[in-house]
């Protein structure tokens, strides 16, 4: 039977079919749908959102050593967080099959950098599988478990954005029940630091055995042809090669580490011109050159930056230009810059920060948009949890009033150690935690402070206020994020405090299912009372538009009843619809704060 599946859904399907009994991950584009699909469709894989990727990896490592088949998922930068565990696990090797997804994001659609994680695999000496379509996402996931158990090694499944986020028809199968493997306690194997010198040579032996296996690995597919052109490729780029050079011979490498030297030499010797087409860095290409294949053209013509596409290959190969946009180039055409959703609770916080004119160190989440107009109230953003450490450093560099701003999920992920450090080392910084009970940017997944697990069931919620106090912060304020004046007051008070202070701005993400499904009593503008002072426009709510007569108008179908525009209106011209059920929104907000 064939199903139309997203690459990520096909990976989830493959994991289920392969008999996975434990799955963990942290949300991150473009990897998120794997755990989501497992949670929705395949609960017998025991899927969970973990506090961060390192914890997810370590939980998976434990479950695999304990004898289960395990899938761990993360985006490319997630592996930076999990790298400590990742680098040492191969020394012990796995017991049950251990496969981890590294979803790379060339083009940085929703990432802070580009990063080709195949280099991690080389550094950690673990094999890499790269599917090239949705069918292979399912097939290679299953094959990855067999490979993992065959060589007792963790296996990296590497995808890129277009592979993860395209849909294709997938022939699916049934779940195989895989017997749990016995765990035999063995300090010489599993206590790596003590016995590292014993394990070290085994890592090299295993790598050589995998290199030999790669020569005949069925995941490396050869399509010979009469053409003088041969192409070595991997991943989604294979599809672009088939569109652009339909007659060329193709070696599609399904296993891109370790690479098979003989297979590559033999393939390339048959063709006069050889192109290497791989998204990301010159990973395959470098190895080919290193083993003496010199008639190769790759990154010099296709480039290392951004996503590939058939159009890009065509241009790079000098096969013709593409039509230009009809409305002029991107700059000439009116853009639709990213912005906070209607009713997003982050708005009031950034409005306050803009007003206070403080230095703001930001973090990873929707609130990176606070750096954009109209707020321009976020001055640094680097990586998960970096806001607090950066703020401590900025303060030490002589900046008086420094604010760190971080989401609830990101705070749990990587913010807590830095907050402890700010107390320990005598910082005076202000930390604002945007507590919306969701990992918002990736689609409002639950996290350890949200009160729900990955499957949407009730779960214990850690108390962020109590965590901050336990870290040693004495001044912790909790405010309703839609209470405009309350937010300003709380932040102002915290900024002028001479010890670390935390403001928790609380209110659920509008993308949460319970927020989207609730009945909403919208607000409207009573033109008789409106003086066209434009104060409501400065809330920058996308649901407020201008009429032909210059009055503000609220798109009632979009209004979330957040009340912020009504709070700023000096003439009380913004009113709740009378025939509605009352302000449902405020009820929810009050419940969530109690």
């Amino acid at each position, binding site marked *: 039977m*064939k199903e*139309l599946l997203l690459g990520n859904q096909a990976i989830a399907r493959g994991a289920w079919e392969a008999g996975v009994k434990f799955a963990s991950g942290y949300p991150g584009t473009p990897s998120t749908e794997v755990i989501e699909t497992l949670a929705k469709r395949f609960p017998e894989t025991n899927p969970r959102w973990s506090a961060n990727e390192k914890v997810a990896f370590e939980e998976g490592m434990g479950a695999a050593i304990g004898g289960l088949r395990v899938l761990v998922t993360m985006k490319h930068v997630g592996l930076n967080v999990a790298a400590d565990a990742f680098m040492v696990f191969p020394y012990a090797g796995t017991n049950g099959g251990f496969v981890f997804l590294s979803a790379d994001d060339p083009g940085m*659609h*929703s990432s802070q950098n580009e990063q080709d994680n195949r280099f991690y695999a080389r550094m950690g000496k673990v094999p890499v599988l790269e599917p090239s*379509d949705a069918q292979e996402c399912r097939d290679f996931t299953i094959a990855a478990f067999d490979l993992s158990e065959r060589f007792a090694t963790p296996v990296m499944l590497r995808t890129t954005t*277009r592979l993860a*986020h*395209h*849909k*294709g*028809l997938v022939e699916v199968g049934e779940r195989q029940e895989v017997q749990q493997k016995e765990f035999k306690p063995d300090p010489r194997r599993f206590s790596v630091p003590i016995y590292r010198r014993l394990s070290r040579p085994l890592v090299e032996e295993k790598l050589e055995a995998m290199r030999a296996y790669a020569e005949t690995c069925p995941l490396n597919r050869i399509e010979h042809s009469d053409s003088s052109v041969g192409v070595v490729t991997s991943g989604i780029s*294979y*599809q*672009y090669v*088939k*569109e652009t050079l339909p007659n060329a011979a193709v070696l599609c490498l399904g296993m891109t580490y370790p690479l098979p030297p003989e297979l590559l030499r033999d393939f390339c010797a048959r063709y006069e011109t050889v192109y290497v087409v791989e998204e990301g860095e010159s990973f395959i290409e470098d190895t080919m050159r290193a083993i003496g294949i010199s008639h190769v053209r790759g990154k010099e013509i296709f480039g290392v930056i951004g996503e590939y*596409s*058939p*159009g890009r290959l*065509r241009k790079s190969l000098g096969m013709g230009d*593409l*039509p*230009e*946009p*009809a*409305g002029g180039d991107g700059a000439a*055409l*009116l*853009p*639709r*810059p*990213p*912005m*906070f*959703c*209607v009713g997003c609770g982050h708005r009031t916080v950034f409005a306050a920060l803009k007003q206070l004119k403080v230095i703001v160190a930001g973090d990873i989440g*929707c609130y*990176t*948009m606070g750096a*954009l*107009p*109209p707020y321009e109230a976020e001055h640094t953003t680097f990586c998960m949890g970096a806001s607090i450490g950066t703020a401590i450093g900025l303060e030490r560099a002589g900046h008086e009033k420094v604010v760190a701003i971080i989401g609830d999920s990101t705070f749990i992920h990587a913010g807590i150690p830095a907050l402890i450090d700010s107390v320990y080392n005598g910082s005076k910084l202000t930390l604002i935690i945007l507590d919306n009970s969701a990992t918002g*940017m990736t*689609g409002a997944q639950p996290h350890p402070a949200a009160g729900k697990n990955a499957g949407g069931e009730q779960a214990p919620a850690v108390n962020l206020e109590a965590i901050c106090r336990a870290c040693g912060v004495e001044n912790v304020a909790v405010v309703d994020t839609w209470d405009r004046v309350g937010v300003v007051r709380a932040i102002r008070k915290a900024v002028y405090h001479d010890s670390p202070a935390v403001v928790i701005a609380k209110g659920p993400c509008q*993308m949460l299912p319970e927020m989207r499904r609730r009945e909403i009593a919208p607000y409207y503008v009573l033109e008789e009372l409106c003086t066209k002072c434009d104060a409501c426009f400065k809330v*920058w*709510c*996308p649901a407020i*538009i*201008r009429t032909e007569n210059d009055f503000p108008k609220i798109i009632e*179908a*979009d209004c979330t009843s957040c009340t912020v525009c009504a709070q700023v209106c000096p003439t009380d011209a913004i009113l709740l619809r009378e025939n509605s059920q009352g302000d449902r929104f405020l009820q929810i907000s009050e419940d969530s704060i109690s």
Partner: protein
Amino acid sequence: MTEHIYNLMFAGVGGQGSLLIAEITSIAATQAGYDVKQTEVHGVSQRGGSVETHVRFGEKVYSPVVTPGEADVVIGLEKLEALRFAHFANPSGGLILANDFEIIPGSVAEAEKKYPHQALEHLKDAGYSLEALPASGMARDLGDVRMANVVMIGALSTLLPIPLECWQKALRVRLPARYLQGNLKAFSSGREVLLERQRLGEFQQSPIAE
């Protein structure tokens, strides 16, 4: 079944449901026995940003990505987005199917003044083959402006070699039961508008089929 690979580009604003109708189209093409691939590109914001969704179907489809200049139909759910993605239309035979509807970007200063209100006229003048319909108005008359997206695929259905029953099945598969009846009406009204124009000879574009 021909060897032609059908290339469709759905362009809209986050919240308009362009991804949903691209999915319905993909399911309908699957029902008709085609190989199908689909992909979408959107920015970091959940709502209010440009959303482009690519659908390709035929006997054997490799890339999920539509190349500029190769789309058989660009489905613009909004005028500015139709303009932004018009160059994806194939210069020989490609059509832009546009919803005559404006969404002013919320966070751009003086967006109303900068908005290209003459976008569709501009495209016609530039030589693009374009068919506009008031899908949002039609959907509002049917009771819910949000069904404009389904009105648009009703119109699209007259241009593609996918049998009507495959479209209807796709709508049933993809839409919640409580919205189905309204959306089937929206689909029919979009389809009727284009069929009527074809009957009256106002619209020369024949189905791309075969």
